[in-house]
């Protein structure tokens, strides 16, 4: 039993942390999200160069790491730096490509290509199995019609992995270039500084080789994506804790640091307890993902996303409250972390969604 990071993993975290500290900033993040492509291409290239993209994937498919423990190390660090680059979507898409088109991964790992999944639709809410987009086959080609909702970093992508109902009634996954005729992206900034888009497909023609496989390929991608979000939320929560603690110690009101108020001290302790539990939930999810028990994996992933969703928001709200008025302003880095902490719950299924999944799997 060992909860420490291996030397390799620690080295990667150190490099990534230093890169974020020295080369990334919230102003760069803010500017990038205002317009397409919605992220900073220079940052992306550098993330690829220092090996972060490669570390998402297995050596078998050309990556450098790729275990669930690598993922939590990377995403906790990205969360701590509030990096708004398409790492999580690329992890998901890459996970699908690794199974289906490993030849495409090389360009992804080098940073030349960005592939993101487009799996959710407006009518489906958090359920990716509700699909209305259609892929009609004629001869050796497919024609795709439909729309995908809140596709994270769609504008940054060269390729989308799109779920669509085939003539058989089953749902398949298709590789669709974002610049294909009939693909329309309506991009927007997110309330958390992550850019996304509504994506519509009107008679989009793709070849037979665009079909990657069926929807079940998405399961592993969604589990890894959820783990990544959980780890990111953990990094954010740790950052919020540090910032709030610092504020309690330095902010003077009525002649003494506000941290001398016992009521705030006890609430701060509750925040710390929550964050320790969040960390354990993330570790549990990683361990389950590392194992082979399908049910345990699904349960631990949902347990983690539930824990992160509820506690992450509590931490964010307490951080804002304890900062008082200044905590209401965009000027403060803290509020950007808090916004992201809240919105993470709205990606890949919120706490309610995952609690229900957890309960259903217990009954199963």
């Amino acid at each position, binding site marked *: 039993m060992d909860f420490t990071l291996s030397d390799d993993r620690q080295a990667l975290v150190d490099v990534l942390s230093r890169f974020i500290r020295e080369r990334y900033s919230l102003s760069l993040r803010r500017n990038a999200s205002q317009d397409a492509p919605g992220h900073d291409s220079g940052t992306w290239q550098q993330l690829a160069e220092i090996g972060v993209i490669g570390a998402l994937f297995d050596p078998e498919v050309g990556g450098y790491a790729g275990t669930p423990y690598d993922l939590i190390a990377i995403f906790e660090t990205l969360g701590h730096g509030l990096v708004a680059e398409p790492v999580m979507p690329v992890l998901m898409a890459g996970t699908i490509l690794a199974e289906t088109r490993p030849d495409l991964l090389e360009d992804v790992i080098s940073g030349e290509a960005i592939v993101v999944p487009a799996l*959710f639709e*407006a*009518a489906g*809410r*958090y*359920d990716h199995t509700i699909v209305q987009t259609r892929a009609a086959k004629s001869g050796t080609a497919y024609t795709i019609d439909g729309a995908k*909702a*809140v596709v994270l970093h769609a504008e940054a992508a060269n390729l989308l992995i799109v779920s669509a109902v085939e003539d058989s009634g089953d749902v398949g996954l298709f590789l669709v270039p974002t610049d294909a005729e009939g693909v329309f992206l*309506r991009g*927007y*900034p*997110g*309330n*958390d500084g*992550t850019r*996304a888009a*509504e994506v519509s497909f009107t008679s989009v023609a793709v070849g037979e080789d665009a079909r990657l496989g069926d929807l079940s390929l998405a399961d592993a991608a969604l589990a890894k994506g959820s783990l990544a979000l959980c780890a990111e939320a953990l990094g954010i929560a740790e950052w919020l804790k540090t910032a709030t603690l610092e504020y309690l110690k330095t*902010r003077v*009101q*009525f002649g003494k640091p506000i941290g001398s*108020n016992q*009521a*705030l001290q006890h609430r701060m302790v509750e925040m710390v307890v929550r964050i320790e539990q969040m960390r354990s939930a993330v570790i549990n999810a990683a361990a389950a993902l590392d194992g082979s028990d399908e049910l345990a994996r699904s349960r631990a992933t949902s347990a983690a996303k539930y824990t992160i969703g509820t506690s992450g928001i509590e931490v964010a*709200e307490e951080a*804002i*409250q304890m900062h*008082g*008025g200044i*905590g*209401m*302003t*965009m*000027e403060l880095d803290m*509020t950007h972390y*808090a*916004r992201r902490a*809240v*919105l993470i719950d*709205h*990606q890949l299924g*919120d706490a*309610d969604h995952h*609690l*229900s999944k957890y309960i259903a799997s217990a009954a199963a």
Partner: protein
Amino acid sequence: MDLSFSPEEQAFREEVRDFLKSELPERLSEKVRTGKHLTKAEIEEWQAILSRKGWLAAHWPKEYGGQGWSVVQRYLYDIETSQAHAPHVVPFGLSMLAPVLIAFGSEEQKAHWLPRMLNGDDWWCQGYSEPGAGSDLANVRTAAIRDGDEYVVNGQKTWTTLGQHANMMFCLVRTDTDGPRQHGISFLLVDMEAPGVEVRPIITLDGGHEVNEVFFTDVRVPAENLVGEEGRGWTYAKYLLTYERTSMAAIGSSKAGLAWLKSIARAEMANGKPLIEDALFAARLARVEIELANLETTTLRVVAAAAQGGAPGAESSILKIKGSEIRQEISSLARRAIGPYAQPFPPEVDMEGSNEPAIGPDYAGVITPNYLNLRKLTIFGGSNEIQKNIISKAVLGL
């Protein structure tokens, strides 16, 4: 014990309803209902309608142009206007400065400023908070030094709500730095268009511009703009803080918010049925609805005590605590209700109305910013922590 309103009060309620039905433009109420921001012109449009009816300052004594309404009437009016989604009247002049002027202002000040309020001539803002002071309002450092017939003001105010629209500010300034710090504070009316006044926006975490910083550099203010006596400003400010406390429960806003939330939960689908039928979501809705029904009666109890001459004291801090928690909970539930569409940040055009279709359901765009914006409820107006300190000391004697 009798929870019903008297026939006169019932009739009054009907009158308010009829007025709202005929005079409140749907264009405005629809924006309010769906959480959109109103422009300055729209707010002024509604205030002019109220002014014509004589209801813009209905809570004022009759001699100054008010209706002399009872606390119960004021409560009913608040509830009805909120539930009809009428725009909020900007309270700074009408509800915050006016009572101070009426109680402590000179005859000249009353004769000059009160009719201008009724007429919509001035847009007032409040200058209490200063940077770093937080809930410690007596921590006033903005200096006003007497120089002949004028004061020369230097310093900074912050969290000035809608200060970008204002042409006048009432504010606390320090006229004396000796003695207990509450004693050297005076209450001054400042022309925002005077040289040396600078207003800078504060963008809040919802991305909105509602509050401002205001800087004073050698701003000259006529001495006749001093309200009451020099050095007594803290007394006036405290008088104002206890005024209209029952409105802090925000029952009307919460009821309107809850109705809107329910309509959203009926429209959203989760697991193949309307979200409102989801057991966990329905339970949360029911809990907050019950809390709100309880708080409405708690508020009425305070109102009734006030109507019988009892001044609402520290108990009204209970209304502030619970009222803010309920409004925040409703806004959180709305955010949860819209699922993935909590993510898109609405461009300005969406907020103001545009021809482009909304991103996601048309109600979704304002929900996350509203949730974020309402975090302020437990911070501003005396944070909930401060309210708990007040109750602990004043009510519990701890």
